[in-house]
């Protein structure tokens, strides 16, 4: 079962909502404190990409953010309803800088830049596009729980 599921109107202010809620859920799930900054940036980046994509394409539907923990890892998915992601440019900095339009780099969110940041930031990262939109999946390992916290099912299995 998901720890948290958010259905967000695609508004810039809710990118912060997503960051705050996912960080709180990750802390509760026991994510290592050293990884919290990375998680905050990655969730912010994925959500702002989704919100920006909806704005660019006039999509009114919601952006969905889901946090799932199983004993081994924390999985965050961000799903948009925009057009599929394009290829990330090789020379990102050059691409941002050399654009002729002075307003281009100031665009609310450049989806390409977001994906490049996510790829560089998170080791376990995947993008999957389908007919209805794109899902960005981010995963982090959770600390192994102490033996005393193991559930009854696995105790029985060990005894069998």
């Amino acid at each position, binding site marked *: 079962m998901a720890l948290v599921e958010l259905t967000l109107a695609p508004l810039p202010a809710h990118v912060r909502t997503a960051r705050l809620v996912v960080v709180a859920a990750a802390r509760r799930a026991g994510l290592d404190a050293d990884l919290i900054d990375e998680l905050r*940036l990655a969730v912010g980046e994925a959500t702002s990409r989704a919100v920006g994509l909806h704005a660019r394409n006039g999509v009114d539907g919601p952006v969905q953010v889901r946090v799932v923990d199983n004993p081994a890892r924390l999985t965050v998915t961000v799903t948009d309803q925009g057009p599929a992601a394009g290829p990330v440019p090789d020379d990102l900095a050059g691409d941002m800088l050399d654009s002729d339009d002075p307003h281009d780099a100031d665009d609310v969110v450049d989806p390409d830049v977001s994906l490049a940041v996510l790829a560089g930031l998170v080791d376990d990262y995947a993008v999957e596009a389908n007919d209805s939109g794109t899902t960005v999946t981010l995963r982090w390992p959770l600390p192994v729980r102490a033996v005393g916290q193991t559930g009854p099912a696995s105790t029985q299995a060990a005894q069998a």
Partner: protein
Amino acid sequence: MDLSLSTRTEGDRTVVVVGGEIDVYTAPKLREQLIDLVSSGQYHLVVDMEGVEFLDSTGLGVLVGGLKRVRAHEGSLRLVCTQERILKIFRITGLTKVFPIHGTVEEAVAATD
């Protein structure tokens, strides 16, 4: 935390002190500030980011936009940042090669290359 902005003049440089979170919600405020400075003829900017708690690619886009505007007037845009979590996003995107990044405002104001 919201975005805070203040500016001051040091010699021929304008120092923009930024604090708080630069994201898709707050970035327009920083963009307007940089546009206003360039419009009023201030082409040598130092952006002090030591008080920034969060920066995403939207913030990077605004800084790149600012750099392009000052370069159009043969100006400069230097950053002051020592925070690893902020520097990381500049490295990932290759923008450490584009922006001169300094350890202190004094160093950035004195820099001429």
